[in-house]
């Protein structure tokens, strides 16, 4: 029951310095070296595919953090307020992530390293020998100006909302009161509607249009599920690592349990959407649809295809089903790491067969680019996190979060 005499230090701040900072910078250098290596050894397409993968992953994780914040407001949920600084820091990084993704997509598009399936000379010109009737039919939607405009507008709107919630959180911290909570609630409702309708299109554009002949209406939700699972995993992983470093004394196994339930539930949801897409295509057996899985069942992709399901479905299902696993920090941390790697593989399976096709690889470029982006994300997020206290002390639900018990 109401126990108001806790002894937490709400003014504590995260210190971002020393070895950790050095390592994130080293990781970024590794990333740049890997990109340079890829471009200089004539593997432009593979490098661009990896850049797209990690830029998209990076943006998705930050967007999922923004979605998490908005969801807490709209659901009027209190349990996560003790750890809300972490998604807040991640959503503050969203504008930079969005910029990176726009640069990667636009430069890939204009240099014909990405999206050349629909963006090439003469595809929609009936007189040309390269004329492609299907692509020509889609050219009203898939053309360079409209594609770039959509990407910039969507990511710009998300970034605007991220800065709006950041501003409200900041002013709530300074001035207190319920005004900013109410404002955040109102704008969160609008944001969720916009986000819900635009993320599928965002996924259609950035990932699905790599193979422009093929289409699937499930693809948007499939990507959304992947985004949400990896976002929650990132939040949970940061919370656990912060707790291990001695911060966030007010976050206990009850909060981890809720995060674990989210991870468990949305891993199942991911599988549900993945399987819905697969089953319909398998059952209908129409050539224009099965081509997607045909490519992924080629010998060079087949093992990864199955590994994807094992990592992202079987692993969280078996490890996280028991109540105790969700409440134990170490076990949850292992699952988070497995799933973050798993969703890298998931994006890999979405992107690579449509770009590098049979010239698939897993080497310096893949690992280097991934390490670089992890370093960039860690650096930016922890930098944001270190700028303010680790709890929003004027949030109306803070007390509820501290007394959370399940």
């Amino acid at each position, binding site marked *: *029951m109401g126990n108001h005499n806790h002894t937490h230090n709400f003014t504590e701040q995260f210190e971002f310095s020393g070895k950790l900072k050095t390592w994130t910078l080293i990781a970024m250098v590794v990333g740049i070296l890997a990109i340079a290596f890829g471009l200089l050894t004539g593997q432009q397409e593979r490098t661009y595919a990896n850049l797209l993968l990690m830029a998209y992953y990076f943006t998705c994780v930050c967007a999922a953090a923004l979605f998490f914040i908005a969801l807490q407001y709209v659901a009027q949920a209190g349990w996560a307020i003790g750890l809300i600084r972490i998604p807040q820091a991640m959503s503050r990084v969203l504008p930079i992530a969005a910029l990176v993704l726009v640069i990667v997509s636009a430069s890939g598009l204009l240099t014909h390293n990405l999206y050349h399936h629909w963006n090439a000379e003469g595809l929609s010109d009936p007189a040309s020998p390269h004329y492609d009737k299907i692509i020509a039919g889609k050219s009203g939607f898939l053309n360079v100006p409209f594609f770039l405009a959509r990407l910039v507008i969507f990511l710009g709107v998300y970034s605007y909302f991220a800065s709006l919630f950041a501003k409200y959180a900041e002013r709530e911290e300074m001035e207190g009161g319920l005004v900013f909570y109410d404002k955040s609630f109102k704008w969160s409702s609008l944001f969720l509607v916009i986000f819900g309708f635009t993320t599928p299109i965002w996924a259609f554009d950035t990932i699905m249009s790599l193979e422009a002949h093929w289409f699937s209406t499930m693809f948007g939700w499939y990507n959304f599920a992947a985004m949400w699972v990896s976002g929650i995993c990132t939040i949970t992983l940061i919370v656990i690592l912060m707790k291990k470093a001695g911060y966030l004394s007010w976050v206990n196994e009850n909060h981890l349990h809720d995060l674990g339930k989210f991870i468990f539930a949305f891993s199942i949801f991911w599988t549900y959407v993945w399987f819905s897409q697969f089953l319909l295509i*398998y059952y209908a057996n129409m050539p224009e649809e099965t081509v997607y899985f045909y490519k992924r069942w080629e010998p060079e992709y087949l093992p990864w295809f199955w590994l994807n399901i094992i990592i992202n479905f079987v692993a969280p299902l078996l490890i996280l089903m028991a109540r105790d696993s969700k409440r134990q920090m170490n076990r949850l941390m292992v699952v988070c790491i497995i799933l973050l790697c798993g969703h890298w593989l998931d994006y890999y399976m979405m992107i690579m067969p449509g770009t590098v096709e049979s010239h698939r690889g897993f080497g310096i470029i893949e690992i280097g680019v991934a390490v670089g982006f992890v370093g960039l994300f860690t650096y930016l997020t922890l930098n944001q996190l270190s700028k303010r206290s680790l709890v929003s002390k004027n949030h109306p639900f803070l007390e509820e979060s501290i007394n959370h018990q399940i």
Partner: protein
Amino acid sequence: MSNIKYILGHFEDPDDLMHGIDKLQENNVDIYDVYTPMPIHGIEDKLGIKRSRLGKVAFGFGMTGTITAISMITYMLVIDWPMNIGGKPHFAFPDFIPIMFELTVLFAAFGMVGTYFFANHLAPGRAPRVMDLRATNDRFVIAIDAKTNTAHDQIDNILKEAGAVEVKHNERKYVSYE
């Protein structure tokens, strides 16, 4: 020797109830059970109640459903009456998954309803086991076994001091019997 079987302490407020539990435990009085009209956070830990086995039961029912589904479909579509559907193999496993999923959910749901009725004596034809009717309405009730805890006056005093609005000495365990 008195015929009192159970001592019931009535509280009006969950905070008083928790205080009463503390007081009884301080005086080494065993609590038989606690009845409340609503769930109270942390009461299971305080009373040392073991974790519910409902999860394992649900898993068992669910697996029964899965196995029923896979064996049923395999018998029908592979062994008894194989048909060519869209050129697929007879054992077209992806097609079976939705049915396996549905039967898992169905068996788990019905199994849990049955378990709930069984465990709570709510099946048709059985009288519910209620120690005090007001515990289903507006009172928070601590029940103490009067046969094993013989210092009745002392228990009465502890309960009253902790804020009990009423202390009952019951000669029957339940208000109703089957």
